[in-house]
């Protein structure tokens, strides 16, 4: 192996580690945001006691951070880490240990193709900031993210008790029903972007984002596709009003009833990592990624500062979407299982098909008009 390859490998591994830790900490703080927003919406205060000793000594900032609960994720993580590991006697040990990993890995794998910014160097050469700029980006995301359900199904099955089992079954049924609508709802987006006459092409997420530069965001062009995708995203991430696998009120804890300590923590983090990645993907597809506003050129100059601002802007959009996820969770009650199925198969799927056909006709018409 030559030195260049090793250097490149080391660089890639470093990037990957940085990316994973950033996404994991965002997921951790999403948990905090969930608790805080939930508390505020219910007229409570939320976690506001945890503080590090040297931070509490800082005059104004210390108490402010304490009241925001900024150190709560740290305490929660430590709690999960140091709790006693209890393995019930009736579980299938191998799959019981395997399933948290199977749940977490897909959540963290999808981020490899997720572009979050771009860097233009002095020569004007632009590179997207992404771990792996693969051409079939969105297909990869769909393929991997739907593997996450295996973790839940395995957990439900290996727990060998009725509530987790029900949770696992519900989860797999729900995942199958909404995956279809999700895939069909993004097809028009790619049709639109890849129409003849457009400069960008491919399934790559980077080209999707760049097609929205200086142009209306895709959410403005295709609001209905975005809406369908958002609903399917809620179902895919197992968030209320579609949190069938958990449904605390009727299934105790759903698929993770038999799990405790760090294994439960992994499920928990995986769930929030799904939310973070899902929001980021929605941002890239429909909200213009790191580009400023619809029809407005990026106000920041290309270069290091510019790309940092772009990444910040991307994160800001993602956080808004995460807030929306949390907001919806604390507003809506849960659907009944049969309602979820009915909505998925009888409403969402036909609507997605109609949407697709409409855009196929529209894009064909526009192409004909452009050609003639």
């Amino acid at each position, binding site marked *: 192996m030559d030195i260049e390859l090793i250097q490149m490998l080391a660089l890639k591994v470093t990037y990957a580690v940085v990316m994973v830790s950033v996404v994991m900490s965002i997921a951790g703080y999403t948990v905090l945001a969930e608790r805080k927003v939930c508390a*505020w*919406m*219910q*007229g*409570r*205060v939320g976690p506001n006691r945890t503080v590090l000793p040297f931070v509490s000594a800082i005059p104004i900032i210390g108490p402010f951070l304490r009241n925001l609960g900024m150190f709560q994720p740290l305490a929660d993580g430590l709690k999960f880490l140091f709790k006693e590991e209890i393995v019930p006697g009736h579980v299938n040990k191998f799959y019981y240990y395997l399933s948290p990993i199977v749940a977490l890995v897909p959540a963290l794998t999808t981020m490899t193709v997720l572009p979050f910014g771009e860097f233009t160097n002095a020569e004007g050469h632009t590179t997207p900031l992404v771990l792996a700029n693969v051409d079939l980006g969105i297909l990869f995301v769909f393929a991997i993210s739907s593997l996450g359900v295996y973790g839940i199904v395995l957990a439900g099955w290996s727990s060998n008790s009725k509530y987790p089992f029900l949770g696992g079954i519900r989860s797999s049924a729900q995942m199958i029903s909404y995956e279809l609508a999700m895939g069909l709802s993004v097809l028009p987006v790619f049709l639109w972007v890849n129409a003849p006459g457009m400069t960008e092409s491919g399934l790559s997420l980077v080209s999707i984002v760049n097609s929205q530069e200086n142009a209306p965001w895709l959410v403005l062009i295709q609001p209905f596709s975005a809406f369908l995708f958002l609903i399917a995203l809620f179902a895919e991430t197992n968030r209320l009003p579609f949190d069938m696998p958990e449904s605390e009120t009727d299934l105790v804890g759903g698929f993770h009833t038999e799990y405790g300590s760090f294994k439960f923590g992994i499920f928990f983090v995986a769930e929030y990592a799904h939310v973070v990645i899902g929001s980021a993907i929605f941002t890239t597809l429909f909200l213009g990624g790191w580009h400023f506003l619809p029809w407005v050129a990026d106000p920041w100059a290309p270069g290091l500062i510019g790309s940092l601002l772009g990444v910040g802007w991307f994160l800001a959009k993602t956080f808004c979407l995460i807030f929306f996820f949390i*907001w919806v969770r*604390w*507003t*809506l009650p849960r659907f009944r299982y049969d309602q979820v199925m009915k909505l998925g198969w009888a409403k969402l799927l036909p609507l997605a098909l109609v949407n697709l056909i409409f855009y196929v006709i529209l894009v064909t018409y526009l192409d004909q008009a452009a050609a003639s």
Partner: protein
Amino acid sequence: MIKTVVMERKPLSLSERTYLPQIASGLKTTFSNLFKKKVTLQYPEQRPSIPSGYRGVPTLVKDPNGREKCVSCQLCEFVCPPKAIRITPGHVPEDDEERSHVEKAPEEFEINMLRCIYCGYCEEVCPEEAIFLQENYSLSGYSREEMINNKEELYELGGTLPDKHFKWDKKKADEESGNAH
């Protein structure tokens, strides 16, 4: 005989069947709740205001002269439904000028807070107004023994309450004016 009236439900309109307007109004409600005043009481720092007539931990009180009020009549011990009170009666020494107005005083006075049900009968029955359920509501201990308040602790909890009647002062005055009963 009341007739049951079956309410006719209007069929849902199209916009209602999509749930979306309702979801939007729900989201509006929760969003406005974000900025409302919080109802949380930050407990150890902030305390709830105790209403008058509150029945907290039973305590023994002293009169405004700092004298022990209890004369160990044992009525409270008798009336206590869960039998939480135990009194060991004792005599007040003859030569004690301070407390010459009474003959007896408790040698030991114990209230078992694991038994006490905060009914307030002891306060109600006490002829000397020596026992009061005051405002203290948070009581804790590491063992069963710690949860039994002895006389010293009861007086420490109770302190001195303003006396409304000055029963013994009046009796003494009556006695001096030759109007004893």
